[in-house]
């Protein structure tokens, strides 16, 4: 008797509870549906249409993709090739430095040097600054005539106007801006490695290099995987640095795909949102494939 009464009581309670639980998640779910779910579905659909952002989109099947991949005479074909190539060049150049530099800094800070907190703050700080402000400051640093780099080394290197200097400049700014987070992650990871591993290795007469590759790297494998994947995704979305530092130049050699997407969809003149969406989908697919590959290669080995 008592148990059945309790049962009905809890059942009733759980339905009212359920109702209130939905109220708690509703604000987020509504915003999530309107500003994430619908745009994603719509974004994929739009890539199969001809659209100018304002009139109703016309379905054109795979035409946008055909144009982008196979129509050699099309400007969009050239844009995709240039943009995607430049994006990949940037990712390949920037990501290794965005991993190695903070790893070295974290290792150096892990020796607990004098002023280590101050050093940590200095390296982390730029990641909290707006990219447009950072690029303005670095534009001065790289200035041909009165920039400090050329003045100190007594050169007249046109940093942002010629290759390969333009790529070097972009990578330098990116590393300077973004490594703080990765450095903190590595610091925490290095701190977590038990000291006796190194003591045991010392007794066996291991060298510093051996210790680094046999103890340190395997111990922080999880954090390395995480940072490699996240950094790569972030760098695929590069936009502010080439837009404001090199203007995509010289000769479009640093014009990345996101710049073409922005220009086609929102630039001056008629919007070509269908093609731009197809470019965005292609970029998105590239990001997902690269992340999947990184997961596979960095995870399996143990």
């Amino acid at each position, binding site marked *: 008797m008592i148990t059945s009464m309790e049962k009905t009581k809890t059942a009733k309670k759980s339905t009212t509870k359920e109702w209130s639980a939905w109220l*708690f998640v509703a604000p987020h779910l509504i915003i999530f549906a309107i500003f994430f779910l619908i745009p994603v579905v719509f*974004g994929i659909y739009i890539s199969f249409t001809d659209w100018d952002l304002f009139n109703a989109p016309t379905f054109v099947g795979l035409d946008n993709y055909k144009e982008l991949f196979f129509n050699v005479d099309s400007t969009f074909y050239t844009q995709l090739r240039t943009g995607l190539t430049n994006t990949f060049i940037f990712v390949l150049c920037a990501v290794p430095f965005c991993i190695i530099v903070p790893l070295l800094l974290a290792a150096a800070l892990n020796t607990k040097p004098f002023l280590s907190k101050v050093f940590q703050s200095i*390296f982390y700080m730029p990641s909290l600054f707006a990219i447009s402000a950072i690029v303005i400051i670095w534009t001065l640093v790289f200035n041909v005539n009165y920039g400090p780099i050329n003045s*100190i080394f007594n050169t007249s290197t046109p940093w942002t106007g010629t290759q390969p200097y333009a790529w070097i400049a972009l990578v330098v700014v990116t590393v300077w801006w973004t490594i703080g987070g990765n450095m903190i992650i590595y610091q925490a990871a290095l701190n977590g490695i038990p000291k006796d591993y190194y003591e045991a290795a010392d007794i066996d007469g291991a060298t510093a290099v051996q210790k680094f590759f046999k103890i340190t790297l395997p111990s922080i494998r999880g954090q390395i995987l995480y940072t490699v994947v996240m950094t790569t995704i972030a760098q695929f979305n590069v936009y502010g640095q080439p837009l404001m530092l090199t203007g995509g130049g010289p000769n479009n050699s640093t014009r990345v795909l996101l710049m073409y997407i922005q220009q086609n969809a929102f630039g001056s003149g008629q919007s070509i949102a269908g093609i731009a969406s197809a470019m965005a989908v292609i970029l998105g697919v590239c990001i997902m494939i690269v992340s999947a590959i990184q997961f596979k290669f960095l995870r399996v080995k143990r």
Partner: protein
Amino acid sequence: MKKRTISSVVAFIFLIIMAAIWLVPLLYGVLTSFKSEMELMTAGFKILPIEWVLTNYTELLVNNTSTPLVKWFMNSMFISVSHTLLVLVVVSFSAFAYSRLQFRGKNVLFSFLLATMMFPSVVNLIPLYKIVDIFGWVNTPLAMIVPGAAGVFNIFLVKQFMDNIPKDFDEAAQIDGAGDLTIFMRIILPLIKPVLLVVALFSFTGSWNDFLWPSIVFNDIEKMPITSGLQLLQGMYQAQPTLLMAGALIAIIPTFLLYLFAQKYFLQSMSLSVGVKG
């Protein structure tokens, strides 16, 4: 022991060199913002200004209608603060439900939300503009305040934090007849303050520094935030680097101050977030 000292000396020298690379651009930017245009162009390379001037700042801040920096600054402040408040409310309510309440399909829904985090956001950029346009939000702060609250990561972070709070407290309150809202407001909310602070700091800086999205949804000079404003400024004053420096430095003051006062939380939170995800 000797080996240890050698390696720490090497580490220290390395850190000094790197710190110089990190600081010199900033310091040179600060010093340049106090130079006159003439001096920068003609005096050759000097680190310190020969004559310290404030004209770059006054020109930008006083009676400036073509590039209203003060207005941009206030726009950014309003946007970032509002966005942060919205995120805090939405995230804490939602995380509470996923952590503490029972409803059908909860786990499936939460896993689905987590899975969407891996989806490349570039794909929804163009339709998002259209939706914001339909709502009439183009050139209004709402375009930057609301869409960002769709994110899932913060909910995950806060839920994880809540999961570690013992259930004894809420069960005791439940026995006393407290409803979900009371338990949330009276018991859980005070306990999750540390993680909410982290969410607030990152929401504010993220919103303040956002660059691509505002450049799409704002073309009205009066309405734009400071990141888009700086891009405009760069286009207009390409030949006046001293003025640009002043503008750039004003734009980084708020996040710089935030960092000075809340450094500990910024640094702690990085390991918090990777602990959750990794």
